[in-house]
């Protein structure tokens, strides 16, 4: 799936919690709290500051261009770089079932 060219909206899956370990931010798929039927992943993600920002953005539905624009505005990076970072992040988290495609478009511009 080419997430960068998609107009698809993405959002955090439920059942994923954020934990800090030795100052680092982790996404922990505590599956006992997950209620969807998707295949659960045993993979833990350690986020860098950019990843932490993007993860928080995905609390509400966003498209890759939305993420890139918000990243560019808050982190003072070029749009091309922001777009690449956002696309790679979404691709990785989608592969690990930490985010999901959603059809909801509410709040996308926040």
């Amino acid at each position, binding site marked *: 799936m080419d997430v960068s060219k998609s107009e698809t909206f993405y959002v955090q899956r439920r059942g994923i919690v954020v934990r800090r*370990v030795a100052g680092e931010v982790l996404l*922990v798929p*505590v*599956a006992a709290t*997950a209620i969807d039927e998707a295949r659960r992943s*045993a993979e*833990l993600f*350690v986020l860098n500051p950019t990843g932490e920002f993007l993860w928080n953005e995905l609390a509400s539905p966003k498209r890759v261009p939305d993420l890139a624009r918000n990243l560019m505005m808050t982190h003072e990076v070029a749009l091309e770089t922001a777009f690449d970072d956002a696309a790679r992040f979404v691709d990785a988290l989608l592969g690990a079932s930490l985010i999901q495609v959603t059809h909801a478009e509410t709040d996308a511009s926040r």
Partner: protein
Amino acid sequence: MTAIGPIAGLVLRHTMDAPVTFRDLPGSEWRARDDDACDITVRHMLGSTSVDGLAPSLEVGEHATYYSDRDGSPAVLLRQIIPGVESVLLRTVVPGHEYEARYSAAPTSAVPRVVSELPAYTLALSARRGGVIAHGCGFVLPGGGLALCLGVSGAGKSTLGRLLAGESGVRVLNDDRIVLTMQTGGIHAWSTPWPGRGGQATVGDAPLAVVALIGRATERRVSAIRGRPAVAALLQTIAIPLWEGEASDHALELVGRLEQDVPIVRLEYPLETGTGAWIATTLRSVANGRVEV
């Protein structure tokens, strides 16, 4: 009836209500006496391995799926890991204490003990908030303290165990799995009765003195590793009980404390004469804070 341990202080006992025999019972070193107090019981029986009424929670590889029962206790369905047996369902009876292993059919030959024993022990350890199991080769350094060499499958843990076996002052405890527990004075490391391909699983324990992430290279290299890369590497080789929130928090707290309190290095080396001695000497120096890396 077979009692194993203690494993990090816990005796595990198998009771057989099914025609199951183990093909790899440990030597006397790991055999607890039948009249020793028992901490964890695994009852083996034939029966339904249906997961009706259980909620799926986590898939680990191709052969294991974790579930939660109505009380939130974990169960594990193990598929196609014993010849002639489609599945084994390991269920919690009393969290931290009693488990039952239901076989869909009678095994046609003796089964590896580790198949049911390791998952049952893992569930009990996490239910007790007792510690975590690390995928690593652990050995006692000359002068004391344990060096834990972590690596994913195929990284060379068993080969390392063999390299170190003949080194003066070194005592290899286990070439594949080490239990880590949090104690008042720091993190403590314990051998387990589950060896890797090298077959090394000796009773013993020691304070954790140094952690190495091992890998092959054309020349010997040692470098310190901290922060995000260290945490990421630790999480690849330390089993976090993701099937239960509080238990995973406890395990992550241990990982965080390890990262903060114990020196961690990346250790790369070729397999050549003298490598075992270099590894032992280097890790001893790192543990003692005598090497700038």
